[in-house]
């Protein structure tokens, strides 16, 4: 039983991290109807930019290496880079393709993926880097001693950060002018336009927010596995979360992440050994697929009734 809980809790915590990546997809899909394939590349780009600045800033500014000042300066600069990326994306990719069918926009984001990957590695090089956020990835002793359940302190930290981020985004959507405008756009582009919300600004903002989410996700995943090209693969973990939770639902991404995280771990541990293991590559997809058969619009997706 103790093992079961260990796996379950570990899975739920991982699930939060999947949700974090899925969140970026949801934001963009909600506001602009674009299935942004480049989200994984953005995570990579953000993390690499952050680590890159950490490396070069001490030399440029004379700040103490590894210090707080460098950390926050790098964070702000990376955020700036993500905003620039958002502006460039809107200008170069989205604006000329407005009103094109979704598949064309999807394809354009694939082109964007190559661009972003090439730029990231072109500027910062292909070296694999470590990232230390100062939180040790070790078992929490209290849980170990009292319940013999292993829970990683880093995962708890990451989950907390993700939770704060989600809460902050929810507040942002609910209570700010921009947030309300974003929701209006998500509900109805035409209507939003007609009441005078500049769609272009909204797109830039939402891509920038998605860039911010990518930066946080990239930092956490980068601290877990190193800052390297493989960060783009985190997108693969996020996709089943996305279809399970619904493309347009922020809470869906969270709940979907928890379900996927927990069930894939339990499946790998309890089912994997009987079929040769390694089922984590497809299990979340099959799970999500089975779920979709029951609810085709995802957990929290908007139900679509065909009107004829």
């Amino acid at each position, binding site marked *: 039983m103790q093992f079961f809980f260990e796996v379950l809790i570990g899975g739920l915590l991982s699930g939060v991290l999947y949700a974090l990546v899925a969140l970026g997809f949801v934001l963009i899909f909600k506001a602009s109807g674009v299935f942004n394939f480049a989200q994984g590349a953005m995570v990579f780009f953000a993390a690499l930019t952050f680590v890159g600045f950490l490396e070069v800033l001490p030399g440029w500014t004379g700040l103490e290496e590894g210090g707080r000042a460098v950390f926050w300066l790098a964070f702000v600069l990376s955020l700036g880079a993500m905003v620039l990326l958002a502006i460039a994306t809107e200008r170069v990719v989205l604006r000329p*393709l407005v009103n094109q069918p979704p598949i*064309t926009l*999807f*394809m*354009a984001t694939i082109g964007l993926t190559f661009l972003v990957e090439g730029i990231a590695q072109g500027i910062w090089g292909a070296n694999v880097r470590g990232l230390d956020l100062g939180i040790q990835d070790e078992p929490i002793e209290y849980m170990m001693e009292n319940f013999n359940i292993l829970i990683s302190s880093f995962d708890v930290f990451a989950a907390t950060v993700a939770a704060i981020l989600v809460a902050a985004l929810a507040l942002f959507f609910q209570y700010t002018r921009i947030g309300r405008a974003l929701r209006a756009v998500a509900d109805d582009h035409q209507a939003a336009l007609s009441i005078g919300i500049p769609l272009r600004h909204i797109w830039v903002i939402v891509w920038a927010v998605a860039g911010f989410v990518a930066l946080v996700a990239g930092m956490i995943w980068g601290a877990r596995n190193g800052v390297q090209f493989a960060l783009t693969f985190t997108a693969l973990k996020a996709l089943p979360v*996305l279809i399970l939770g619904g493309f347009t639902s922020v809470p869906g991404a969270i709940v979907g992440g928890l379900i996927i995280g927990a069930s894939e771990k339990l499946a790998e541990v309890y089912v994997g050994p009987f079929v*040769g293991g390694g089922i984590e590559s497809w299990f979340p997809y099959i799970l999500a697929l089975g779920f*979709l*058969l029951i609810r085709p619009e995802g957990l929290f997706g908007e139900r679509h009734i065909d009107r004829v």
Partner: protein
Amino acid sequence: MLYREAGQFKASYEADQQIFPILQDRVGVLLLIGFFALAVPLFADQYWLKAILIPVLIFSLAAIGLNILTGYAGQLSLGSAAFMAVGAFGAYNFMLRIDGMPFLVAILLGGLCAAAVGVLFGLPSLRIKGFYLAVATLAAQFFIVWALVKIEWFSNYSSSGVITAQEIEILGFAFDGPVSKYLLTLFVVVVMALLAKNMVRSTTGRMWMAVRDMDVAAEVIGIRLMRTKLTAFAVSSFYCGVAGALYAYTYIGTVEPEGFNLDLSFKILFMIIIGGVGSIMGSFLGAAFIVLLPIALDVTVPVLLGDLVSASFVSNLQLIVFGGLIVFFLIVEPHGLARLWQIGKEKLRLWPFPH
């Protein structure tokens, strides 16, 4: 002047319903096939045959497969490479386990295996649409590759999980050189492309497109959605499967399941989007574009910049240019190269007298 249909009156519906109704198109296609079947083998060197033409043809076939599903029937799929894998491993096992199995039959059977698997993974399409379906097809992608690695029977218990294509022999003639392999590939691809063209211009194709454009209306005029979608999945997977078998037999030789990974699926998707969704011709153009562009960049960029920047930067620059060109093409012509081709033809039709 040359491309003018004026004066070509069709006196019968039969004439109007030919595969290529305009004379110049008929002649053009014949010339094209003639050129690739007769002239190319004479003049192309091994490099062009083995490294460019054969893969372009094979990827074109896979792209036709995906185009049938996505372009005509409107079901977005990200699992084409997995169906190619089924075709390759299927053909291999038929060749291996049945004595005297004719090669062409084996690749068709491989295609049928892929079709069967395709129908299975197409079942969810009855309830799931759009990007939800696309992500769901990733289940096929990952599951099939996983199963091919795990179930050792598929690779005949080879220690590394790879299969090595047997020699190809048809009616006593061994297809072992690049020219013969190229011609064999060309033959299969051209025949299947023509069959595909026939399908999409007949009731089958109209039903696919009807489902794509508006499924409720399609059902109301009596089209059975399930059957139509599953037919599209079957035919599409069949095409991908045959492409996969050719990939193993006339192109790569020894293949591992991981060779049919998600990247390949995406590549095939690029081909149809760049080439033209819902166009057989576009599948060829897209495949050629996606195969040739990176090579062209790899040949030219280092020459232009090689001494100025590091080798790594040159490689990254290629990636940047590749991505940039994709975006550029989508902006210039979101409907793909096939549309550009059509516009070109229309211009030609009027030339030199624009109205």
